[in-house]
């Protein structure tokens, strides 16, 4: 089922993206170092590149003769081209900048005096991060999750190039819709489109509601000073 496959890919992608984007965004929001602008540009690059360029680059890196492709083949006897892992990699690369951007902006907006106050109260950097910065950047993290999930779910171009279109193995929803339409199977295409649309709606609606609830808790209700 393409829907299950899409879901697996999007979920795996969001988990990976979350694990990496939060520490990297934290670092980029608060530390100055040489070459920071270059790093920033590289991280954001997939946002502006066409998916076909990303797909091509992934093939070069992970392909049979690519550096990571050879490494994976030799040490793990595995490959990612034309597999679901390939689809996950494509989704991670395209959705990472979205999550990263919104988390970084949210962290930059956390009042630095609050972090300073925590330090004067004896907190180590790691405690400052987990008890002050992260909870106060919650809105941005939720927004980033929504965007990353949506982008992962909808990834088409790069996925097609690196994972191909193997029904039951790598054929995600967007691919299934495209190929159903191509082969004139309008019925399947429209059913898939409807499932995809309503499912995406539900996920985003749910995440937004959840985010709002968490926000209300963290802000301690109304303002009646």
């Amino acid at each position, binding site marked *: 089922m393409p829907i299950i496959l899409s879901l697996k890919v999007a979920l795996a992608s969001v988990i990976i993206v979350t694990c990496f984007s939060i520490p990297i965004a934290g670092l980029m929001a608060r530390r100055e170092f040489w070459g920071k602008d270059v790093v920033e540009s590289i991280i954001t690059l997939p946002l502006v590149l066409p998916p076909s360029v990303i797909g091509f680059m992934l093939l070069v890196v992970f392909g049979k003769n690519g550096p990571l492709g050879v490494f994976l083949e030799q040490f793990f006897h595995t490959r990612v081209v034309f597999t679901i892992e390939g689809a996950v990699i494509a989704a991670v690369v395209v959705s990472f900048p979205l999550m990263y951007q919104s988390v970084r902006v949210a962290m930059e907006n956390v*009042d630095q*005096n*609050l972090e*300073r*106050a*925590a*330090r*004067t*109260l*004896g*907190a*180590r950097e790691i405690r400052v991060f987990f*008890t*002050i910065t992260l*909870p*106060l950047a919650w809105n941005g993290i939720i927004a980033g999750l929504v965007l990353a999930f949506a982008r992962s779910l909808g990834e088409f171009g790069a996925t097609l190039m690196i994972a191909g279109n193997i029904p039951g193995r790598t054929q995600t929803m967007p691919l299934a819709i495209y190929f159903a339409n191509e082969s004139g199977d309008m019925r399947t295409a429209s059913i898939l489109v409807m499932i995809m649309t309503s499912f995406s709606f539900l996920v985003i609606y749910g995440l937004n509601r959840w985010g709002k609830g968490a926000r209300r808790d*963290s*802000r*301690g*209700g*109304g*303002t*009646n*000073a």
Partner: protein
Amino acid sequence: MLKAHFKKKLPSFELEVDVSISNGILALVGHSGAGKTTILQCVAGLQTPSWGEIAISNKPVFSSELGTNVPIRKRRIGYLFQDYALFPHMTVEKNVLYGKPKKGSASEQVLTAGDVLEMLKIGHLRNRYPSQISGGEKQRVALARALMTEPELLLLDEPLSALDQNTRSTLQQELLKLQAQWKIPFVLVTHDLQEAEMLGDQIIKIDHGQQEIIKEQGEQGKPEKLELVRGLNNAR
């Protein structure tokens, strides 16, 4: 006890300070932009001086000569920010408990949040969030939070400037009382000379990075000065 003699380069001038206080309140007074807050931040470790030495309770926390720069969390200072800097996502009680020393730490006193909250008359607010209390109450919470860490020095950055006249006078009285009770030196930054005169045992005016002593500490200050110089030498 605080002894600080340092320089710090700022964009338009160089700040130079030489202050020491063993007990009571040291008031730093001056216009905004004169460098008062920078002094507090250097003492706290939020900024690094370009040259000099800072010692808190006879322990050097910064020395350009020795290359010492003790991290903020180990300086045992309490810091009151001008905007209170209360954590908006935590209740008053959680705010106050944030810096409570863990069990088994070196501190002899066993302070409970209840004691401190009651002392500052904010016990009834413990389950409120900062957005639900008034400015004067926020200041009390910030004080309680800073004292909870059992600091050896309390730094106050324009603590009363955002409050109305009545709340202000009440809190001025309470600061005096607290200082007498707590017996640790307070360093208070203000732009209001009247407030400095009312609270300060020692008043120093800061203007364009240069200091001018307006009021000296009482007689007992002098022998103690010798004592702390000795202490500094011993610490090395």
